């Protein structure tokens, strides 16, 4: 194998592929990157066995071939090289990397040692989705997925595609986030899959230059492709619980507040809140809300805030961290919070126009101690 590639292009492709390389593994080959020559350049592949990616880099290929090299070392080396053409040549598993006056020799492994990638066909049933919408979906939901091992299904993000809409939903059982966008291109593809959040955030990072992403659904794999780069991820086996049943329909107490002001007030209160529960109490009265914190051994605080509130007076407790988290993803200046009672889910949505998509979040309260 023999090719020449610009240092910047090599680094870009390597950094993208390295995002998949597991930082620690008991299978040493996974810490390597597979380099293969293609039609008009090279393909860099990496996998952690759950998530795999192939990234294309523009290069001039003189002799076709393939080899694996240690990802971290190669990345560090290419990063430190001057912005000049990099010549890579391999004979068997010996690889030389020349750039300007620098010459490196590496030892790699044959392609046969590298795990084979899943096969997901892009031939039929491909969903085309604008990258911008995909990013919005991912951005507004992945944070809410569970990181506990108790219920693997909640570690994933539900991705639904029907004729009119596409939606992602994630929850850890205490708070839930959902984002819905209009289905753009008309294709026959419909889906209902549960995707590991790592794959989604990785996809929104590597496809930063593309307009449209192609998504193909396999047996228990999902593939996303654009601009010559392809990502494969294992899916989490469903079915996902019916989240629609828990979205409150009868919340009759409605508060509208300035989003930034509420975030700032909550952050101030959180300073004194318990490190374990992050408990804050919100007291809603007509046109005013008071935030209270009282933590034994630490101290107490309260803050008044002008808001628009309709409904019976309400005292309700929350984990400030959960509330802050869902507020962070509310677009627009005004946020609407609706409640039923101190033991029922609060619904958080943007108060103004919702832009192109619709974000909604549920937060379960913390029981107030008498």
């Amino acid at each position: 194998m023999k090719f020449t590639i610009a240092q910047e292009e090599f680094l870009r492709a390597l950094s993208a592929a390295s995002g998949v390389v597991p930082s620690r593994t008991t299978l040493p080959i996974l810490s390597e990157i597979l380099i293969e020559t293609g039609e008009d350049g090279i393909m860099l592949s990496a996998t952690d066995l759950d998530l795999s990616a192939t990234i294309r880099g523009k290069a001039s290929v003189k002799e076709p071939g393939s080899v694996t090299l240690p990802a971290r070392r190669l990345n560090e080396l290419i990063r430190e090289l001057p912005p000049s053409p990099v010549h890579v040549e391999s004979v068997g598993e010996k690889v030389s990397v020349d750039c300007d006056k620098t010459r490196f020799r590496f030892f790699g492994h044959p392609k046969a040692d590298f795990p084979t990638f899943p096969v997901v066909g892009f031939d039929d049933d491909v969903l085309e989705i604008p990258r911008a919408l995909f990013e919005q979906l991912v951005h507004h939901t992945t944070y809410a997925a569970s990181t506990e091992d108790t219920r693997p299904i909640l570690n994933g993000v539900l991705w639904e595609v029907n004729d009119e809409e596409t939606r992602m939903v994630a929850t850890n059982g205490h708070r839930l986030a959902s984002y819905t966008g209009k289905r753009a291109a008309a294709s026959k593809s419909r889906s209902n899959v549960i995707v590991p959040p790592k794959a989604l955030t990785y996809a929104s990072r590597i496809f930063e230059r593309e307009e449209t992403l192609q998504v193909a659904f396999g047996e228990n794999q999902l593939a996303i492709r654009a601009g010559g780069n392809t990502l494969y991820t294992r899916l989490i086996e469903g079915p996902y619980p019916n989240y629609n049943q828990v979205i409150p329909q009868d919340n009759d107490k409605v508060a509208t507040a300035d989003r930034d002001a509420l975030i700032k007030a909550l952050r101030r209160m959180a300073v004194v809140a318990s490190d374990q529960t992050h408990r804050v109490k919100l007291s809603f009265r007509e046109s005013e809300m008071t935030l209270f914190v009282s933590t034994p051994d630490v101290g107490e605080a309260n803050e008044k805030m002008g808001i628009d509130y309709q409904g019976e007076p309400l005292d309700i407790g929350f984990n400030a961290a959960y509330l802050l988290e869902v507020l962070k993803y509310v677009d627009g200046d005004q946020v609407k919070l609706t409640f039923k009672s101190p033991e029922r889910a609060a619904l958080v949505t943007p108060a103004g126009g919702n832009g192109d998509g619709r974000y909604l979040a549920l937060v379960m309260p913390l029981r107030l101690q008498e």
Partner: protein
Amino acid sequence: MNPRCIAHVDMDAFYVSVELERRPELRGRPVVVAGSGPRAVVTTASYEARKFGVFSATPAARARRRCPEAVFVEPDFATYRARSADVMAVLREHVERVEVMGLDEAYLDLTDLPQPQAAARAVKHAVRERTGLVCSVGIGPSKLVAKVASDAGKPDGFLVLTAAEARARFADAPPGCIPGIGPKTAAKLDRMGIGTVAALAATADDRLVDPFGPRLGPWLGALARFEDDDPVEPVRVAKSESRETTFDSDLNGLEALEPALTALCDDLCAALRDSGRRGRTIGIKIRLNDFSTHTRARTIEGATHDVTVVRGIACELLRSFDPQRPVRLLGVRVAGLEDVVADCRDRGGEPQEQLKLPPPMV
């Protein structure tokens, strides 16, 4: 199901190694980590010091006599705990099922890994790479075999044994070399004429039932045959946490004892608060100068880690016990611990503070 493959990772002279990181000029010299009080014992001795007959639990005074040129270092448990956490983190990165035993040893369940021995080597290497500390690794089909293997390979060992190899290797060794058989049991076996592991292994269970009871007896025989199916349990939830101190010279009277007890309560509550745990049972332990040990405890309504509550109850217990002899050791313990963070999740029947989404979501 695959046959089990267990590794026992045991840090070599852990406290001494940590001290040597700070004082590399002591490398190669006999170093002993021990308290300075008249009743202190050695917690760890470097391999150089062990040649002089200084081991863990040797009284510090005797250690000084046996090896006057040794460098004596005061134990610094905060640092040992931190370094231990570094080591355990490396282990957990490599292997999912890790059972931590104290600060310097752990069992790893390698059963489902494709290449268990290679994984264990990688772990041993990674521990040295990442922490600079050296461990010995023993591998076997059970925790027991893994443990004797790690011990037999020390220092810097890597030893794989099957149960049959362990039986052969330790056949002529005294039964006391098997973890789980303590000095009293070993002495009793010796009086019965059972002086080797092989002899114990060959002893019929009924001969052991009489002196040791129906459960312990056969269990001793199984140990000697290296039969052990104790699983690697990653979560060992501490049920209690305690602090105790042996006084340099015995203390007399409540006035002298209460400040000592208060200090122990402060230390204990700080640790509970840091780890987010509370307990409902508060107990004290008193050892008098005749070596009699007494405990008193009280269970309260709600779990606490509040230092004023713990102090109050501990001091009340001490006052009502009112030791009539000089006190050698004093301890405080909070038991029935619950994890505050976990309590926000699910703990069968307990009222939960953080409410959950309704079914079917959870």
